[in-house]
């Protein structure tokens, strides 16, 4: 195998592995803790906003 050929195979493998590193995680189900956290953040905000502003006008 020529050096050029080897390098272009290597470059292809690098691109494929890069995507794999990222997509392996991106394709996982998101753990519940994150959705729970978002829900908590939303709830805590709603309790803070007990007096909504009514300045539509």
């Amino acid at each position, binding site marked *: 195998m020529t050096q050029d050929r*080897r*390098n272009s195979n*290597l*470059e292809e*493998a*690098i*691109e494929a*592995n*890069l*995507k*794999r*590193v*990222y*997509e*392996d*995680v*991106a*394709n*996982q189900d*998101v*753990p519940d*803790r*994150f*959705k729970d*956290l*978002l829900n908590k*953040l*939303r709830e805590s*905000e709603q309790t803070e906003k007990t007096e909504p502003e009514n300045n539509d006008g």
Partner: protein
Amino acid sequence: MAEHSDPRDEVVEHLSAMRAFAMSLTRNSALADDMVQDALVKAWSKIDSYQPGTNMRAWLFTILRNTYYSHHRKARREVADVDGEMAAALSQKPDHDGRLQMRDFNHAFEQLKDEQREALILVGAGGFSYEEAAQTCGVAIGTIKSRVNRARKQLVEMLQMSDDEVLEATDVVTTTIVSDNKNVA
């Protein structure tokens, strides 16, 4: 009361990508998830700095990487690389080209500088344009391009070396001739 237009409703759509980006930076799943959690709390509190209609993923990634550089980079150096060790242990059989490559790749990828790794992952895997990556990292487009190019070049160099080692090892196994060839070089 246009509740449906609250940009915070969109955050959930980017959770997977945030975890993937965090994992690319930390190479440690526990740290990565802590980092995502911190970034979410921050994003929530500073949602006013997000301009609706612009790239929310880039905005979230900016917060994520800032979290990494200000808090987690140090921790990354301190914790043992459990994931990496596990991955290495799982793929120790050199009988599968893909696996072997992946182990070598992971090792090489971790040797890159943080700034190179993030640029490479954004452009090479995250689907970010150079411009979006530059915006996310707060640097010029040219800087991102040169980081990506250097990172690619370094990976090629590192993997060329490990490739040679593999070929050498394979030769030794298949021929069972352990010669003094190495001494020649």
